[in-house]
């Protein structure tokens, strides 16, 4: 120690000495232990216990006797029918969403359509609009007391939306943003030179179209895979539109197995395995195609985007009218239906009396979301960091994240229900368990959102800080966090909104007497309290939108301009 202190100037470069080094080692060990405990509690224990129970029904009770009975049960009757429905709905959604998303991306990136910037705004609105809000809007539209009550023919047509048609339509609208974003990225990165070379060398229009489609193939494959996988994993739309019409899908079958009497976790687990078997190939395809697509991108210093197709006046009118009609159908109709049913016909006094339970549900969801999202970001950031670093740990984490994102949310929720109703882990019935589930559900997606910005942080920025005397903590505070502030804020906000609108875990794990927003909405829908349903939907969106705008204002007000301008030059 004396040798170290020999050259250290007294007023700077001071270190912690031997005691400090020992403290750091213990802190590191404690940190690793905590990380392991979090991993086990949030994911490993509940998921392993649940998924293994398909083969070992009493595994959480310590009984390792194996049986294939749950799998046999899942492969016949109701569950098989539900899985079959999941498969054909997912394929139909994929096939319908693909041309729709491609058309929207083409309009946005390759035409001179006036107001085409609005396509992106509409797509983002669809993305953040909760899927069960859309479904709830259709239900209200088709309700006997809804806005179409005076037009029986229209009401009858709207009632077709309650069932598989409505489910497919709603899922198409929910997944089309993903297809749009993938296709848009591909169109942006494709250089004009390829088509120009085809024209100069005399290729016909048909051949040029074939070449363009070949260039887009990775994006199309990825788009289809995402649309297919998201449809298979969806629970909210099925729980809303399917339940009311008796149409069931795999995720709802899992829910019924763990929500009905008697509880049948092994059957739910077996059905989950079969559903995973349908989801996983799509996500693997999407991951592989995504990697290959980035290799074939031509973006560079000499990149020249393809010329836009000039639309004539007639085309502008037609395309614009179709776009507006689509927007009205997708967002306008459900919103207007909800507003129409929510309107206080009996006077504002009725609204006043009806508000408290609505505000309680929204308040509870927001409160849980704020806490869970904050914890989520604290876990997701180091996870994203580890994945961005080269090495075995990063690769393992990447695969684990991918596997968790493949998991339907209802599966994790069911796993929590089974794991934390055991005598040695009796957490069921409290907000803590629900919060844990929210965090477990949100971390994979939030980590992936943060991966990009973290990977873009050049190593030399931290190296420069450390060489010039800043400790790791100081480097985190003065260099990393400011540079990541935007990404952290928006990923936190996204987590808050997705948790506030979350349904599967909320439905299975909410504490008695404290239904979150989504659960309350379903309860009103199930009890035919359509006015309350509509009011909750409108109020929920309004409150959360106001919260998002307030949070954005606070972020802009209290962070230095330089932090927010990073990457914009």
């Amino acid at each position, binding site marked *: 120690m004396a040798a170290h202190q020999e050259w250290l100037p007294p007023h700077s470069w001071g270190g912690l000495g031997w005691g400090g080094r020992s403290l750091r080692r213990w802190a590191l060990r404690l940190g690793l232990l905590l990380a392991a405990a979090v991993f086990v509690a949030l994911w490993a224990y509940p998921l392993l216990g649940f998924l293994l129970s398909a083969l070992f029904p009493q595994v959480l009770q310590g009984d390792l006797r194996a049986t294939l009975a749950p799998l046999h049960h899942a492969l016949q009757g109701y569950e098989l029918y539900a899985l079959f429905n999941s498969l054909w709905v997912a394929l139909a959604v994929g096939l319908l969403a693909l041309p729709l998303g491609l058309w929207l991306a083409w309009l946005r990136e390759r035409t001179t359509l006036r107001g085409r910037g609005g396509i992106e705004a509409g797509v983002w609105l669809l993305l953040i609009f909760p899927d069960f809000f859309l479904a709830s809007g259709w239900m209200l539209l088709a309700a006997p007391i809804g806005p179409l009550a005076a037009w029986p023919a229209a009401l009858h047509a709207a009632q077709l939306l309650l069932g598989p048609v409505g489910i497919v339509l709603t899922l198409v609208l929910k997944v089309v943003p993903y297809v749009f974003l993938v296709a848009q990225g591909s169109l942006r990165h494709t250089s004009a030179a390829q088509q120009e070379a085809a024209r100069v060398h005399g290729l016909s229009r048909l051949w040029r179209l074939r070449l363009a489609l070949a260039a887009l193939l990775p994006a199309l494959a990825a788009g289809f895979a995402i649309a297919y996988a998201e449809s298979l994993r969806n629970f909210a739309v099925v729980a809303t539109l399917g339940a009311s019409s008796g149409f069931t899908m795999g995720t709802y079958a899992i829910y019924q197995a763990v929500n009905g009497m008697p509880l049948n976790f092994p059957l739910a687990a077996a059905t989950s395995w079969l559903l995973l078997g349908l989801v996983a190939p799509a996500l693997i395809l999407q991951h592989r195609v995504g990697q290959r697509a980035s290799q074939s991108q031509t973006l560079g210093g000499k990149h020249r985007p393809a010329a836009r197709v000039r639309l004539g006046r007639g085309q502008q009118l037609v395309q614009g009218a179709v776009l507006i009609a689509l927007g009205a159908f997708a967002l306008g109709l459900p919103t207007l239906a909800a507003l129409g049913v929510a309107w206080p016909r009996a006077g504002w006094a009725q609204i006043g009396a009806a508000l408290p339970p609505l505000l309680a549900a929204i308040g509870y969801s927001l409160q849980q979301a704020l806490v869970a999202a904050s914890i989520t970001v604290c876990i997701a950031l180091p996870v994203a960091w580890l994945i961005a670093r080269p090495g075995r740990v990063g690769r393992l984490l990447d695969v684990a994240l991918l596997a968790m994102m493949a998991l339907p949310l209802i599966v994790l929720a069911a796993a929590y229900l089974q794991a934390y109703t055991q005598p040695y882990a009796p957490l069921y019935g409290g907000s803590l368990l629900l919060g844990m589930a929210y965090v477990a559900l949100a971390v994979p997606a939030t980590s992936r959102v943060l991966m990009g910005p973290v990977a873009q942080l050049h190593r030399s920025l931290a190296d420069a800080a450390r*060489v010039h005397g*800043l400790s790791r903590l100081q480097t985190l505070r003065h260099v990393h966090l400011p540079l990541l502030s935007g990404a952290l804020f928006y990923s936190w906000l996204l987590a808050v909104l997705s948790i506030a609108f979350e349904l599967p875990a909320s439905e299975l794990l909410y504490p008695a007497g404290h239904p979150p927003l989504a659960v309350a909405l379903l309860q009103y829908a199930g009890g035919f309290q359509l006015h309350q349903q509509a009011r909750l939907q409108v109020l929920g969106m309004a409150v959360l939108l106001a919260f998002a705008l307030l949070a954005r204002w606070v972020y802009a007000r209290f962070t230095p301009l330089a932090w927010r301008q990073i990457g914009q030059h």
Partner: protein
Amino acid sequence: MTLLHIDAAHKRFGSTTALHAVSLQLQQGEILCLLGPSGSGKTTLLRLVAGLERLDGGSMRLGQTVVDAAGVPFLPPERRQLGMVFQDYALWPHLSALDNVALPLHRLGRAAARTQALAMLAEVGLADLAERHPHELSGGQQQRVALARALAVKPRLLLCDEPLSNLDAGLREDLRERIGAVVRAHGISALYITHDHREALALGDRVGVMHQGRLLQLCTPRELLRHPATDFVARFTGAYGPWPVTLRAGRLHAPWGDTAAPPHVAAQAEGRHQLYLRASALHLPHASVLAEPPRPADSSAPHWTAQARVLGRITVGEHAELRLDLHGVPLRLPVADDAAPAAGSTMPLRIGTAQALLFPAAQTKTTKEHAV
């Protein structure tokens, strides 16, 4: 006094060995340049000195303190009292130039740190741009801010990781001189790595040449030019070649003829060798093509006269160079602005043997041109 002592440094990345038992010492107040191509290990060595990587073998001492070695606690970078100028500047984009220089001085308090930082920026000529952010500065300005930041902390050793490689040619020379002047004015020791031999030879008190993880030679620039230890060192420091030659009975036989071997060559073993020549050994004797007036030739000094084939003429900045081929080896020699010999013609070339560099013959194929 020895400031940096590296003893048999060994570093592996997976199955690749980046450094093979590299040893060197850097004295107080010295600028030591490490020269080598990409992948030679010079950046790895610099990062080891900075503490950004750890040794797999050997030891490293800063002053009297062992900072990295097996069985000894590793001293992290923030405790080594160093300054570093990075190839990509590594300025923190969310901080102004002044704050970039002041942040490492945060222990002094905000006011004192900013005062000291401003003084350092003034020294590199950027006081007027103190409030600008990195994206508002040119490449040269950013690198000067980086230099100010590295020097502001009063490091005992300055590390420079190819600081000029991202700058254009004119700016490079200007900044190289500025770096040398500022470093020497502050009496700071520096370890400077580069792949440009002109930079290393101009700046370094001593220059080390690295190749494939090994330190081939470490000496003064003059010694390096006169007595390169290997053919790689000769080639990498700008010598032309190789030409296959044979030393026999005191005479040196080259593809273009033979002459008496100078004493330093005659002392070598007879047999096949490789010949390298510096530009100073090559003369175009015709006055009409010379860029400068011809030097009086010492006819008693051993020399060759060879015929070189003209490939063309190129303009380099304000001057012209003639591209020649001397038995399969391309040369570039300065010529008068108005000299324009026809491509494909031949020109006599006087080759002085006093500066001939001879190395054992390599196991490479010789071309028809080289057959002796």
